[in-house]
């Protein structure tokens, strides 16, 4: 057995989390640097994964596989392995986290510290909260989430995936509920705390319910395998092989129920209308880095799992559900965009924009074409980076003014041109301007969808216009026009903030101009997925032409 690369990739942040949490209360900065260090180490390992991954035509579907026995009694094995999609997602996660840590550098400083730019220490708790270490906790939790996300991207054992899929909720929950930017509509400390915990509980309950429904389905899968195969198993590969060998057949009704069990969980995680309402609260109340963590990393597990598990395990059921899912996705696209237009709160606006984008991702996945699914995968990556750029800059802005309301801003570009510029670029990426990453993926999704469902493709196109509207309106209201009172002294991006944003923008441009490395990794995996659901791309009307250029 070769060096367990995937385990190492996931273990690094986990260790980092423990180490960070162990740092004594007074040594905040140490904790921060420690966290950053470990997240960078993770990037190193992820890069190794990227390099070791063989994209050749003859290569295995799942690579870097590891398999150890864990709980035989449940038929659970510690099975890791990645296909191209998994690699892409792991890379995205690993790359984003350091930026989030850098962006959240001061988010978790206790209010008593001047650094966080908050009012003075609150009286009467200095001795009581002596052992209270929010900063250490914040970064430790982020790393913990990273570890779990990476594991769920790498898990090829359904049960293993489920465990981390569920477990990551807890650290996320504390991140959302514990560390809001103190800029909500509620002006009292108390009121904000209430809103935060409401958002956190909502997040947890939504996802927990989804997860529990999935648990039932997971058990169902085990039972089904148990009475058809020599012994029950959770191993994705084993099940796939058995199915292709014709030894395993869930039977139509069962398969559909199981599919629903899985799909509901994933649809909640990657908020799909009408299960989306937790996202705006969660993203609105939490600090910008956490918001990014939610939408750019954690939610991707949902869409990723649709590709890997829903389609892989239940092809017929997926096919059966496709029409409904497509409609839901379209509704999400339009609905999310329209609601984004109606928001008064910058972060909630971005949240609804994300809902719209997740609509695109799901649309691509269920279009069942290689362009669609390849596009969806690219979309996951691009949307992650783009939202990170936009949301982080928005976070910097909000931290400066202490308000999330769009109406509190105006003419910012006068005092902070660089901030405005980066914000604009983030926005343009969000409306998928050609030349930036998201365009490629959005176009692929559209092509993929259109070539199978013309009407759906055209409806989705309407989303493009709406995206332009909400992004540009946001930009116009906040950045242009006469300077709003209270912003005269607004400082421009600091070095730390610039170093966080600039690479993201560079990445966006690179992905937009030369996505080929990514597509090379993703394509084979997509082909496999398509063959799982035995679908193939529809032929063009004039096949003769294909040979032309």
């Amino acid at each position: 057995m070769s060096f367990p690369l995937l385990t190492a990739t996931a273990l690094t942040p986990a260790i980092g989390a423990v180490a960070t949490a162990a740092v004594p209360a007074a040594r905040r900065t140490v904790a921060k640097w420690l966290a950053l260090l470990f997240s960078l180490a993770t990037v190193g390992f992820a890069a190794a994964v990227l390099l070791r991954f063989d994209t050749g035509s003859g290569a295995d579907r799942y690579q870097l596989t590891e398999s150890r026995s864990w709980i035989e009694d449940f038929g659970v094995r510690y099975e890791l392995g990645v296909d191209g999609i998994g690699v892409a997602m792991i890379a995205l996660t690993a790359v984003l986290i350091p930026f989030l840590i850098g962006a959240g550098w001061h988010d978790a400083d206790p209010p008593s510290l001047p650094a966080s730019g908050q009012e003075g220490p609150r009286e009467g708790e200095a001795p009581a909260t002596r052992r209270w270490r929010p900063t250490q906790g914040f970064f430790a939790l982020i790393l913990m989430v990273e570890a779990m996300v990476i594991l769920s991207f790498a898990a090829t054992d359904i049960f293993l995936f489920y465990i981390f899929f569920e477990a990551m909720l807890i650290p996320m929950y504390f991140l959302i509920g514990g560390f809001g930017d103190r800029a909500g509509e509620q002006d009292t400390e108390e009121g904000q705390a209430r809103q935060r915990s409401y958002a956190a509980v909502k997040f947890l309950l939504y996802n927990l319910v989804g997860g529990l429904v999935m648990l039932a389905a997971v058990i169902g899968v085990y039972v089904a395998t148990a009475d058809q195969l020599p012994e029950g198993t959770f191993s994705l590969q084993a099940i796939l092989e058995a199915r292709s060998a014709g030894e395993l057949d869930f039977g139509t009704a069962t398969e559909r129920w199981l599919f629903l069990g899985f799909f509901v969980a994933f649809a909640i995680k990657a908020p799909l209308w009408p299960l989306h309402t937790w996202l705006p609260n969660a993203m609105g109340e939490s600090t910008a880095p956490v918001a990014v963590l939610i939408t750019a990393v954690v939610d991707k597990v949902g869409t990723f799992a649709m590709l890997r598990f829903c389609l892989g395990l239940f092809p017929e059921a997926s096919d059966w559900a496709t029409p409904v899912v497509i409609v839901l996705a379209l509704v999400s696209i339009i609905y999310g965009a329209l609601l984004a237009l109606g928001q008064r709160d910058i972060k909630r606006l971005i949240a609804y924009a994300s809902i719209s984008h997740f609509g695109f991702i799901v649309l691509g996945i269920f279009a069942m074409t290689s362009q669609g699914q390849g596009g969806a995968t690219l979309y996951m990556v691009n949307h992650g980076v783009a939202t990170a750029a936009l949301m982080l800059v928005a976070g910097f802005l909000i931290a400066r003014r202490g308000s999330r309301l769009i109406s509190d801003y105006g003419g910012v570009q006068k005092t902070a041109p660089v901030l405005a510029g980066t914000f604009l670029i983030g926005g343009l990426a969000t409306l998928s301007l050609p030349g930036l990453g998201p365009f490629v993926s959005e176009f692929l999704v559209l092509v993929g969808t259109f070539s199978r469902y013309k009407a759906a493709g055209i409806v989705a196109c309407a989303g493009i216009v709406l995206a332009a509207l909400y992004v540009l309106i946001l930009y116009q209201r906040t950045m242009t026009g006469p300077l709003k009172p209270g912003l005269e002294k607004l400082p421009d991006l600091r070095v730390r903030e610039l170093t966080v944003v600039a690479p993201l923008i560079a990445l966006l441009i690179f992905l937009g101009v030369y996505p080929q490395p990514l597509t090379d990794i993703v394509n084979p995996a997509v082909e496999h997925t398509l063959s799982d659901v035995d679908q193939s791309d529809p032929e063009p009307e004039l096949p003769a032409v294909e040979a032309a250029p």
Partner: protein
Amino acid sequence: MIGLLVGAPLLGAAVLLVGGRLLERTGHWLATALAAVSLVLAVTLFLDMLGREGEERALHQHLFSWIPVADLQADVAFRLDQLSMTFVLLITSVGTLIHLYSIGYMAHDPRRRRFFAYLNLFLAAMLLLVLADNYLLLYVGWEGVGLASFLLIGFWQHKPSAATAAKKAFVVNRVGDVGLSIAILLMFTTFGTFAFEPVLANANETGEGTLTAIGLMLLLAACGKSAQVPLQSWLGDAMEGPTPVSALIHAATMVTAGVYLITRSGAIFNAAPDAQTVVIVVGAVTLLFGAIVGCAKDDIKKALAGSTMSQIGYMMLAAGLGPVGYVFAIMHLVTHGFFKAGLFLGAGSVMHGMNDEVDMRRYGGLRKYMPITFVTFGLAYLAIIGFPYLSGYFSKDEIIYAGFSQGGAEGWILGGVMLLGAALTAYYMTRIMLLTFFGEKRWQPDAQGHEPHPHESPLSMTIPMMVLAVGSVGAGFFFDSGERFVHWLEPVTGLGHGDSPVSHGTVALAATGVMLLGVVGAWWQYGRRPVPVVAPAGRWITRAARRDLLQDDFNHAVLVRPGNYLTRGLVYLDHKLVDGVVNGTAASVGGLSGRLRRVQNGFARSYAVSMFGGAAVLVAATLLMRAV
């Protein structure tokens, strides 16, 4: 080589944007230099192309594979044929001139560096647009110029009007872009590719229905970019941008991209007559629409904008005519590029001297103060109204002739419309001339109370104007002599000959006639007696025209307001309904809990009752199970 053509200005933009403070002093020179570089490149390529014969003239360059996914193969590849060459020359030359002009015009603007960065960005995008060899890459350029225009229109962001105009322009263009993207999707599903070669080559093989659909979608895109009805509303507001921008983007180059698109896709339109008819109608309508608006505006730039729309209407119409018209559409496009740019630069120079005053009713008699501007502007004016043997005369008359040559009623209608348009053109241009340069001075101190001191602009501004003036005078004759332009473009666009009921000569005569009519009319109204500083109420048509024929009111009533209501409604529903259902369930469970709680009333005996009852049920159920 071709890549470099796009790369140079792109590099400039990047350097200027990233470079920051360092380049405040030198930035604009760098930008201009890079624009010049691409001009030089263009010229060399042009000469090189002339060196080759007919078919070999077209060049291809494949840079790298952009998006390879299964059957979908999108490449970054360029195609330089006569059509592209024409545009490249126009863009680089006018572009360079306007860079030069801007050095003077923006001399005092603190954010000059950014301005030039954006200009370079625009050049790059525009060149990409005309050089792309597949529709997707063209789309990139297409949106790229949109972005540049957004940035430049909104360059003076502190003015809310400017910011709004910028947003409006981008969004309206986005609507058009959707058309283009749908067209691309259709091409992919039909031909399995969207590169020019295979698509255009096989256009005839597929059903006319599909082609009509593609054509209409392309037209939608063209309408967005070229400000044709019904997507014309943004162009007027776009004049909020600095004047050089209006000259370069919103007169000479970007707005003509629509014409390029349709000419480029000629093969598709030729096979889809219905689509062509729509193009013609759009062109005709816009032609008059713009002209009417142009007649009523007192803002010099808005008036010129109206004229731009109308002129592009001509081109559209010509392009709609098919092979008969393509060549002349492009020809008019080029000449128009020269004289319209000249006009705008002139207007800019005037404003420069008048404290950025734009209301023509506050000008008057400026010819004494700024002679060079007067002369250059005047020449451009003569060119646009089609004064015999100046540029406009050739290009426009050819289009009118082509219109007649449709034959039958259609021919007469088109010809008539275009003649009417010509008359109107003459009218509003003369009006501008009179109001600006003739009559007595009408300007007063502005709000701050300083009197404008009209003066001639610096050389960096006047030189480009002179060059353009030369262009507007000579270009037409140069192109037309020996059908040079026709032969040049024929290999790409093809050439058709309709049978016109009237001869060339007659058309020329008629055109000149209506032109004179328009001039006289304008003089009758504005030349004879002094012009009131405050515009008279005017008749309903004037009032409507001042409001751009109510286009904004229409959009607002039909799109904006319902849209707002829709979003507000949805926000409410999302909170009350979608969220409400969830919270409702939670609440109801809570309520149930509260009710069940009461059973636990603390009395041991009632607990005993529940136990006893439970036992009874247990026994009963067990017996029942046995019974059934």
